[in-house]
């Protein structure tokens, strides 16, 4: 009885070892972040840490409070961050290895933005321009709200006082 238990234990250990050896592929490769065309609407370090909060706050303002001139709308992110094939066709930002997908795959975060939102820009630049033909009024409510949140969150993450953040 004792011998049989020993054999089973040895088998389990052996098989686990084989399993680990077979499935081990080393550390997860770092994401390759595709370069965007142009400059980001906010400091990159702030955007990296707080983009989810910004999008969440701004979507509220855009959808419910008529802040149609927001700089932080998802369409604008997509417009700059969607890569293009050699033929000039836009690649969805949520396609494997693309701007959104590469990082979110790395950190294991599922994003469902693009189950509703377009992941490729439309038209010439894909920019939804305001009535003035520009990129929108930077003094809009959404922008102010987003900056406020960005400052607070950035201050938190960077462990500095809110007032210190430019």
């Amino acid at each position, binding site marked *: 009885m004792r011998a049989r238990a020993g054999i089973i234990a040895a088998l389990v250990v052996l098989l686990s070892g084989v399993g680990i050896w077979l499935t081990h592929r080393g550390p997860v490769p770092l994401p390759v972040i595709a370069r965007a065309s142009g400059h980001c609407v906010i400091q990159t370090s702030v955007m990296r840490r707080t983009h989810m909060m910004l999008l969440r706050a701004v979507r509220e303002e855009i*959808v419910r409070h*008529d802040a149609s001139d927001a700089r932080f709308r998802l369409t604008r992110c997509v417009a700059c961050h969607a890569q293009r094939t050699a033929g000039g066709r836009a690649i969805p930002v949520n396609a494997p290895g693309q701007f959104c997908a590469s990082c979110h795959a790395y950190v294991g975060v599922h994003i469902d933005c693009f*189950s509703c*939102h*377009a992941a490729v820009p439309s038209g010439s630049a894909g920019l*939804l321009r*305001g*009535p003035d033909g520009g990129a929108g009024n930077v003094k809009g409510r959404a922008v102010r709200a987003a900056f*406020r*949140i960005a400052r607070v969150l950035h201050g938190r993450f960077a462990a500095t006082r809110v007032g210190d953040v430019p």
Partner: protein
Amino acid sequence: MSDKQKGDTKDEDLWADGESGHAPDAMRRRILAMAGSAIALTLVPGVTLFARDLQGKRTTKGADKGPVRYGLLIDARHCQTDCDACVHACQTYNGLSGKDGPDHAQWIRKVTITDPKTRFTRSFPVMCQHCADAACVAVCPTGASFKRPDGIVLVDKHRCIGCRYCLMACPYKARSFVGHTLTDQKPWAPRGKGTAEGCTMCVERVMKGRVPACVEACQKTGHKAMVFGNLHDPKSAIAQKLADVATTTIRADLGMGPSVHYRGI
């Protein structure tokens, strides 16, 4: 535990607290109110954005009092029975499939009515009527269905849980439900599986000073049966027309105050 000790006490007695009468109820309310303010305080400043809606009104009563209320005037006398340019324009602009059936959303449809006695026939488009006191907004359990200050009724799909109450509540059958995964949505019209949707009065276009896609298409056909504008601006073409000619709204008896007016039905 205390319930057990009281044995066969009546329900009312369980809620009373001896001499203090209804005090526990008031106390409960105070505690709930304090809990509410505590939540508001503990959140970071930016998140008061969300708190505003929690405290906000859920009814649309009085929402049609602002300086802007977008609306439509549809002249059924000029609308042709065999024309569905507005329907196609809506589908093309908003990325709808254009197919029939419960699996496919429709935001605008052509309706032909005939009086069986007189054979009087009219054809006209019916879409979300953007009611002043919208049933879809009243029944929505999550606040996803809402009315903008400019009178446009929308679905906030971030909040929609796909319960379909609004589909049931709307007397105009203006809401649709997306039951399957969609691809190739238009950037200006995000739509996805598990959410209710309806005519947005092409809010993106309207914000840019353009008219809705259906109205533009109707103008192009030459029938010119649709007029779009601000109902609350006395100088607008639509307000002047409404002041000048007899119009009606569909199911005006329901008292929901539609923004879409019809002439000749």
